[in-house]
């Protein structure tokens, strides 16, 4: 178990270092409050740091995430624990929370690692790279991704063979296989939950063939194929490396679908699909992109105009529900769908299919507090107990929710919701 125990106190604990948690932490810190930010992953930045460009402005996502991330990571009033988990939070009284946090060993001393990547080169073990959504490999000794923060190596101990090659290669001798978990006992005055969302697992819809048919990928994989730090430096079919020229998007994959237990709409997938379609038209000028949809939900500021722009660029929008996808010998895919305009079942052939997977809740939220204290909604998002007047409020006074931890939303809405959470936390702390 934990080797060392640290005790400290902060004005606020922010759980989750995505854009929502990061924004909330910055707001608090810039107004003079001390914040501890606990991130489960090896880097802060959440999903946003992995995106290509963002709708509806087509700003490069890395360009707007990295400066935030670096502002957070060097803010004197913010302490960051990456690779860490909140085990239990207990509320003792108003303005008085106790939390236990475990920082898992990284097997690399963060302070000393220079990010030179020599360990990566030395390591003989290759496994799937989770940050490229399994499309390429990485080593067992690895820097999570090029714009990670902190940009230091970690050893994936589950896959490590303990051969010791990295230890020898490391010029600063910062690899340390004896590292153990560290326990932090924190006393806090407020808590912000910003644990984000999970992506719907498309393996649950067998008839779409994900996992079996190589050229069926998820939208998150397509984000990676389009991102500046992309795995192949171009858009290719994972099946055979061919450049795709007839791409199809299947909207509402895992959303608005009671057969998978998720009747709600994910709110972002129409728009990110339209965005990707526009980027694909730029990256693959010869390609046709078809979007199969139930309704196009371009409701936000500048969204309808963005949708019109996609239509103007020649993206093909078909109102239709996909029944099933089958694979031909050459890896092309046949989509059987109900064409709603014509009211008939049709088939279309595409050479790459992107499943616009939806937003589902993060199950971690249930475990932070003793059972039942933190109310969840029917879909296990954190329940907003005063949705209209105080959207950041939860069932526990002094505990607030930011971003997609309370339900699907895009980046602008996540940032505004984080603004609300930090604002409420501030007045909660000041009011005493």
């Amino acid at each position, binding site marked *: 178990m934990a080797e060392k125990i640290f005790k400290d106190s902060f004005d606020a604990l922010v759980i989750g270092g995505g854009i929502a948690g990061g924004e909330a932490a910055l*707001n608090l810190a810039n*107004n*003079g409050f001390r914040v501890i930010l606990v991130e489960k992953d090896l880097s802060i930045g959440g999903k946003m740091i992995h995106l290509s460009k963002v709708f509806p*402005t087509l700003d*490069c996502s*890395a*360009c*707007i995430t*990295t*400066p935030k*991330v*670096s*502002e957070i*990571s*060097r803010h004197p009033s913010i302490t960051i624990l990456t690779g860490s988990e909140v085990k239990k939070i207990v509320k003792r009284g108003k303005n008085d929370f106790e939390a236990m946090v475990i920082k898992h060993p990284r097997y690399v001393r963060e302070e000393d690692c220079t*990010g030179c990547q020599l360990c990566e080169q030395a390591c003989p073990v290759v496994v799937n790279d989770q940050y490229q959504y399994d499309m390429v490999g990485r080593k067992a000794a690895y820097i999570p991704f*090029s*714009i990670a923060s902190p*940009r230091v190596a970690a050893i994936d101990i589950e896959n490590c063979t303990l051969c010791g090659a990295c230890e020898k290669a490391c010029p600063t001798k910062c690899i340390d296989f004896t590292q153990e978990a560290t326990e932090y006992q924190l006393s806090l005055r407020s808590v912000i939950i910003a644990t984000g969302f999970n992506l719907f697992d498309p393996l649950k819809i067998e008839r779409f063939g994900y996992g079996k048919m190589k050229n069926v990928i998820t939208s998150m994989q397509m984000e990676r194929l389009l*991102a*500046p*730090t992309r795995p192949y430096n171009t858009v290719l079919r994972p099946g055979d490396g061919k450049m795709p020229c007839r791409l199809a998007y299947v909207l509402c994959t895992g959303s*608005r679908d009671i057969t998978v237990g998720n*009747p*709600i*709409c994910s*709110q972002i997938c129409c728009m990110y699909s339209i965005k990707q379609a526009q980027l694909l038209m730029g990256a693959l000028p010869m390609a046709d992109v078809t979007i199969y949809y139930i309704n*196009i*939900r371009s*409701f*936000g*500021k*500048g*969204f*309808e*105009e963005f949708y*019109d722009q996609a239509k103007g660029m020649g993206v093909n929008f078909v*109102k239709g529900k996909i029944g099933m996808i089958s694979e031909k010998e050459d890896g092309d895919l046949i989509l059987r769908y109900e064409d*709603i*305009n014509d*009211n008939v079942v049709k088939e279309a052939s595409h050479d790459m299919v992107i499943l616009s997977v939806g937003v589902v809740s993060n199950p971690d939220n249930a475990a932070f507090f003793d059972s039942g204290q933190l109310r969840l909604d029917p*879909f296990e998002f954190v329940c907003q107990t005063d*949705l*209209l*007047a105080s*959207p950041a409020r939860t069932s526990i006074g002094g505990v607030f929710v930011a971003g997609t931890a309370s*339900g*699907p*939303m895009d*980046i*602008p*809405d996540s*940032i*505004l*919701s984080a*603004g*609300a959470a930090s*604002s*409420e936390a501030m007045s909660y702390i000041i*009011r005493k």
Partner: protein
Amino acid sequence: MNRKLGVYICHCGGNISDYVDVEKVKAAVEHDEGVFLARTTMFACSDATQKEMVEDINANQLDGIVVASCSPKLHLTTFRAVAERAGLNKYNYVHANIREQVSWAHSDNKTGATEKAIHLVKSAIARVRLAESLDPITIPSRKAVAVIGAGISGMRAAIELADMGCPVTLIEREHFVGGRVAQWDLLFTTDQTGKELVTRLYDDIAKRSNIRLLTGAEVIENTGNIGDFTLKVKVTPRYINERCDEGNLQRAIDACPVEVPDDFNFNITTRKAIYHNFPSEYPQYPVIDIKNCTRCGECEKVCGSIDFSQQEKTVEVKAGSVLMATGFDPYNPSEGEFGYLQFDNVVTLPQFKRIIDMCEEKLTFRGKDIHNIAYIYCVGSRQVEAGASSAGGSATDRYEEASRDISGENRYCSRYCCTSVIHSAIETKKRFRAVNNYHFTRGIRTYGKQELLYNESLKMGDIYLQSYENDPPSVIRENGKTTVRINDIMTAGKEISVNADLIVLVTGMVPRSDNRIASLFKLPKGRDNFFNEIHMKLRPVETVIDGVTICGACQGPKNITESVNSSLSAATKSFSYVSKGELELEPIIARVDAALCTWCGKCMEACPFDAVKKVVDGGKEIAAINNSVCKGCGMCLPVCPVNAIDLVAYSDQEMETMINALAEDIK
């Protein structure tokens, strides 16, 4: 001065390097005078590169840096902070924009783009050679915020600011608080009522001694700037004494002979010249609408609280920051648009919300029972360019077709209305007997968890039809019957007609028609004509006018939750301008050379911010610049006949060397 300079040229992960040969740029500048090191980088803004820059500056004692990357709008502050962390005065960093101005603008010409980038970087180097170290101007900032508009957004922001310990003046133009929300009865998605919500917030405001609420109040003048705004507010009286007897007041209302359309009910009913919108509305006593009052004196006869001697006042409000929450107007269809004001059973969604609120047991309108309701979606939203839609409309006695023009300026989707109309349709069906709902949609947009309402309405048997783009439904009146006709996508283009007792136009949100406040504050507007933020993701509640934040529906369509999220964000931002009691401002302002100035007054006329004043200096009249007002816009520079004014950090000398560098031939 022999400077030791560092130059960083960014790939922007391909955004720049796909069109600009960044290595070539580096090679072209690395031997320029003073350049000690030049590097290219994948993301200049990344944490790792920032660290590297700090190390470079420290290790090599650099005394100036140039960063060539994206627009300084995005990262000026990022790289200034890098300089500061390295102990370098931040004004010794100069930016070159080689993305928006080069790679994105010239993606069709890589050679030309690279040449232009070289020129821009060279001119930045030329400028940084002359850059001075500057200290920010520190000004006091008054710990007080003026919140304009007491709708849900403004009220919520005021409460939050007060709880952070910041005094607030809440300025509401109407005589009652709550904004639009007070007009809605049941709200999606919680089924609370607007009145409940407004009452709760009003109580919260009344409890807080550091909120001053002004109703019937309108800002008529704005002077000053961030840290020190002075607003002149015209406050119209209620003509009723505060401690009044409610019973008598009701008698006074009954006695008033004047009837005018009631805009609280969107003119479907009338009210008296002395009125309140609904019983126990806040503040809890009525008001005399002096414009329509004939001074007949009937009310005075029955109620002693009426006081026509009350005078209009002008109040001065001082604040360090202004938070704008002036909301929206519902779209007002033009006469004949889908039969509006042409057929007497065509209403807008806001009117419909008032109708269902006012009906008790039976749903009736203008004395007729309502059973079949047709809802026509997206009226005034998602409009298309003129000419793209087909318009109908011939009029005879027996057969009349309304205009179905959907062209207009409002391209955007109003976001709230699909959910609102479906929620209202469900409520109508639950509350009144034998109601059939027919929805004429353009694709349902109940995003997120709001989808559950759509599912519920489908289960209750509501009928959904969808029109083709550019082929909107038509409203026809024949033999006294009103029919809505559509070519329906959901049934493969079948023409479907519905006989409707009431037609509800699902109208969107538009900016407030009375927008004098925007010109008072010089607030910028977006393509959609709503107030515009600086950057949707990086600075979502700030405006280009320093110290003025925006939130709620004045910024674009939003539901209540979204309005409040932005309002609390704006409260935090406004608080951060005033919480410390002082503010640091950019020292990039105009500077007068006292020896040269002959006081002709031309600069004072040219300055849009009134920053120039005449002073006497050593017996000589000269121009003086007010440091906290000057924005460094440079308007005064070209008008000075003796060239006595320079802009700090943009001096003539700096501009000239930059021009020379731009004109230089490159190999």
